């Protein structure tokens, strides 16, 4: 009661003073003595992680029991790794509870890197360098921006759809994927901005077969990563590299280079995860090979759609006329670079891979 009176005295000048006075006068008000029983609840106390050269990083917190990351995480609650779970918590129903289904050793570092290397399309891009372009060129840039924006939207949906299925035991991955989702949101934003800044507008929706394949993959996160990284991710990364080379102003060059950098983190996570998954499932390599073979059909359908190809060729050639010669030559170079990088990644993962017949023209000759 003494505490309550003290509180009332303090509150005497507050707008609620009357309410407090009435409550104190009533015989019902009791402030229980604190039990503080929670204070002894810790699996490991006395931890002192010191910031290193890179600061106090997420990965550096993995000390003692806090660094125990088991291969299976049966706890289906939101209990943070290392904390003591409460009894009787209803399960959330996470689908991905095995380390092999989500893990990549690099996730914690990639999370830090994504936060540290963030950029803001609104203010970091030198938008004032965008000058009027010939109509055919502006339409091509806007068309490519439309499709890249759509790809980014697919990425947001896919990542978020799987991320909430992952248990809290592998929080490094969940946190990294949160940044990857944010990166994708930034890409959606920046390409939309490029389409709308220079007298053009958004163009035609992309063909979208690969979009559907990624969005509708149901075999697990690893399957989604195969399509998101080895197929779509590498393809977009290659497009960005060529767009940077053929950028028409500093703003575009800044955009392509920075999106490329963001995308490289997702490729690293994907590659690292697939390597981990392969190391822990003897059948995984063959599964990935089969998934890629299935995906080829849909990739080729998108590839056969002329819209993206024509728009890219116009950008590379500088005009519709230029697209017919030099522009298409560069487009073919770009496809060769994509297939070559895709095969290098597969080789590094030791996944058997055969280039499908319609794309054989782009396969390395040796």
């Amino acid at each position, binding site marked *: 009661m003494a505490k309550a009176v003290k509180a009332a005295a303090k509150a005497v000048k507050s707008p609620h003073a009357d309410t407090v006075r009435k409550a104190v006068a009533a015989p019902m008000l009791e402030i229980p003595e604190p039990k503080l029983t929670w204070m002894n609840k810790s699996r490991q106390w006395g931890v002192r992680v010191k910031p290193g050269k*890179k600061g106090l990083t997420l990965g550096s917190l993995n000390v003692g029991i806090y660094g125990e990351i088991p291969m299976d995480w049966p706890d289906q609650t939101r209990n943070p790794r290392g904390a003591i779970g409460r009894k009787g918590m209803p399960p959330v129903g996470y689908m991905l509870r095995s380390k092999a289904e989500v893990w990549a050793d690099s996730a914690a570092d990639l999370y830090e890197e994504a936060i540290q290397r963030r950029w803001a399309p609104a203010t970091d891009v030198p938008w004032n360098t965008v000058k009027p372009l010939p109509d055919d060129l502006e339409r091509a840039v806007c068309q490519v921006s439309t499709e890249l924006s759509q790809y980014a939207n697919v990425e947001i949906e896919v990542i978020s759809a799987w991320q909430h299925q992952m248990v809290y035991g592998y929080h490094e991955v969940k946190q990294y994927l949160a940044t990857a989702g944010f990166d994708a949101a930034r890409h959606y934003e920046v390409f939309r901005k490029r389409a709308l800044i220079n007298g053009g507008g958004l163009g035609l929706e992309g063909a979208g077969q690969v979009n559907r394949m990624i969005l509708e993959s149901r075999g697990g996160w690893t399957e989604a990563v195969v399509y998101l990284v080895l197929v779509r991710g590498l393809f977009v990364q290659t497009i960005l*590299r060529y767009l*940077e080379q053929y950028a028409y102003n500093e703003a575009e060059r*800044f955009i392509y*280079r920075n999106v490329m950098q963001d995308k*490289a983190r997702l490729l690293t996570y994907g590659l690292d995860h697939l390597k981990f998954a392969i190391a822990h499932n003897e059948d995984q390599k063959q599964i990935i090979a089969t998934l890629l073979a299935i995906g080829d059909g849909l990739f080729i359908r998108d590839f056969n759609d002329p819209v993206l190809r024509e728009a890219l060729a116009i950008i590379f050639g500088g005009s519709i006329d230029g697209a017919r010669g030099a522009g298409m030559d560069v487009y073919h170079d770009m496809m060769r670079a994509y297939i070559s990088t895709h095969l290098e990644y597969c080789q*590094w993962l030791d996944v058997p891979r055969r280039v499908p017949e319609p794309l054989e023209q782009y396969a390395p000759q040796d």
Partner: protein
Amino acid sequence: MAAFPSVEWFDDVRNIFNNEDSFRGGGGGQCNCVAGIKVGNEIFVLTFEGFECAGARQASLGDLDEVDFYLDMEILEWQAMIENIRQNGHAGLGYTLNTLDLDRDERLATSVHGDQYREDLFFRYNQTLQYFFDASSRIATEFAR
């Protein structure tokens, strides 16, 4: 005036790069990798730690086994890149690291170990690496022919 390639030249560039705040934002930032620089037969190793390029040293061919990736061009190609950067204040269209990597039959960025994960650091830190070489626009360079 430092001559390219030399440890002195890389140290001069490091000095500018390490003290320029604008290289730390807008997609630049902390960078942790060890990059080899191969100029013809001469080898240098640059160590990037956090916001800084922490060191540059002359090295041997065997040291390339240890770096995450290395950038490989002949002296005249390096010279063209550096002169272009000097003229523009930064790399012009045909001379960004990405473009140089795309334009060559043998890649600009490569590795001895073939570890895709480590090679990809070239792309993860591309903006920072570009800022590093762009910083060379602020020093005078002489080329040993």
